[in-house]
């Protein structure tokens, strides 16, 4: 059985009187260890697909099986648990708690997983070690560079050992040097067996993946193998 099985996934919103079909029947199968880039013009359904894959939202119709669990019609709190256990998010704007240290930021998912304080600290340190930031664990985000902040965010995404990593324009707020470093880090994560999704509109970024899913008008236009 594949890690992710998506069948005829659709999502529509009510915008005033108009019904917007953001996603119209997406089929996708992803194996463990895959590295997938999602591209498409704005309004193509990138964000919607990402939200559904990240279990932040449920589809209007269709099926989404993640790690042999059907999550397509789960209740809010169950989804929260799935997010906590299965998904690591990396955001364009980092979304770190401004007044917490790097270590505390990385510990956060473990807090919601119910892990005790001592074990939290150990595992958060290990995660920060993976992104090479052990010397910055007591720094707050405003004392870190953009590249370092995004690495803290990746450590936070990894700390609870999720099945998939979802990165939404991870290099969008970084300069080219930091962006290149970050992509190297993602490559190395891929090599150590992590399953990665990267949403981007930059082809250079997408080229790091194994395959690129091209979306248009809420449907998969093509899947480009690299």
């Amino acid at each position: 059985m594949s890690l992710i099985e998506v069948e005829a996934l659709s999502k529509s919103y009510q915008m005033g009187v108009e019904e917007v079909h953001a996603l119209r029947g997406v089929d996708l199968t992803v194996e463990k260890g895959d590295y997938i880039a999602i591209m498409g013009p704005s309004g193509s359904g990138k964000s919607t697909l990402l939200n559904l894959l990240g279990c932040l939202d449920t589809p209007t119709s269709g099926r989404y099986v993640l790690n042999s669990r059907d999550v397509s019609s789960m209740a809010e709190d169950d989804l929260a648990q799935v997010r906590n256990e299965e998904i690591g998010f990396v955001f364009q704007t980092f979304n770190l708690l401004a007044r917490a240290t790097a270590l505390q930021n990385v510990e956060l998912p473990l807090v919601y997983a119910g892990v005790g304080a001592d074990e939290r600290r150990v595992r958060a340190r290990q995660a920060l070690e993976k992104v090479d930031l052990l010397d910055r664990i007591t720094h707050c985000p405003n004392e870190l560079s953009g590249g370092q902040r995004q690495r803290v965010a990746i450590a936070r995404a990894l700390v609870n050992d999720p099945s998939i990593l979802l990165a939404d324009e991870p290099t969008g707020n970084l300069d080219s040097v930091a962006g290149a470093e970050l992509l190297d880090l993602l490559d190395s994560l891929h090599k150590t067996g992590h399953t990665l999704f990267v949403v981007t509109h930059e082809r250079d970024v997408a080229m790091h993946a194994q395959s690129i899913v091209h979306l248009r008008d809420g449907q998969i236009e093509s899947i480009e193998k690299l």
Partner: protein
Amino acid sequence: MALQTLRANKMRSALTIVGVVIGITAIVGMTSLVRGFDRSFKAVVEETGPNTIYVAKFSGLSFMSGQDFIDLIRRPNLTPNDARALEALDSVRFTDTMLGSGIGDSSRRLSYRGEETKRLQILGTSELFAEVGFLSLEAGRFFTASELQHRRAVVVLGQGPFQSLFPFTDPIGKKVRVAGQPYTVIGVMGPRPSPGGFNVGQDDIAVIPYTRYESQFGVPGFRMAGGAHRDVTLTVMPRDGQRDAALREIEEVMRIRHGLRLDEPNDFDLVTQDAMLRLWERTTQAVFLALVVISSIALLVGGIGVMAIMTMSVTERTNEIGLRKALGAKRQEILWQFLVEAGVLTLVGGILGVLLGSGTGLLVHFVSGFPISLPWWSFALGLGFSASVGLVFGMAPAIRASRLDPIEALRHE
């Protein structure tokens, strides 16, 4: 987690709890003062002994029951003959007659060798006054039945006139003038208790035989609204264990003496210690109720402050809430985070309030000697109240936070 956020927003946290601090300060401070006053007042009342019965034309009791002052003035006056009639009762041990104890004109001066006191209260009583539990003698003796009968010009000084007339000499046997007339000092009373420990002139007093009082001053009183008020109080000591019988008999006798028909209410007051305490209890309960209402308003204002700031905080931290949800926070965990924040915030306010309130009480105590009482339950009450304010008023914002849609919240900047 919640604590981190609070610490990081010190200024805002401080402003949020000001209202709560004020409310709790009011509760604890006022409780300490009211309770302290209550205790010392009770001590004063208890000084008179549980069995003593006062028969008076009117008293605080009739005021409290809402009777018109004019009607009270028009009641028949009590007389020394009433005292004799009461003394004849089986259940009564003795009756003391007291003139000048009330609101009549009884303020006169004492003088000794050209030294004059301020105006003070002259009481005319029987020789039994010392026994009804009003006073302890510091020096000398009280006057006797024979001195009373013969209208002897003898006087027992309170601490006030004693200290101002005889700062260095022994007063016993000295001649003083009471409102111009010569009297011999035969005794000095000790200091008397007073409500709140205040000097309310409780020691500015001199006691003479009431027979003497009557011949020198007449029966004190005043004319008003067609009634001539005479200020006579009878203090009845029942025989041991016969207080209730005495109360019944006194009432009967007084009704007969005043010619009251069966359907007419008493036109005199019987005052006992427990009646006074009951009256006082009612008064303090009213004060406490007022206190609770005022503090509740303060806490309400504090609570609304908490609600406003928490609502602001939720809006401002929408993005954070979205992130926490994305990382796996369940509704309840977000709810608790905000509730705990609000609760801790107001609890800190409560602790400050308890400290400030007891501080205020202690300050008042040390500056003015006003008695205070700081019961542990008023601290517990203060802390409990403050934490509940946070939980109750933090509830709505916390619920709102817990229901935010993670996608919307993450998009919020």
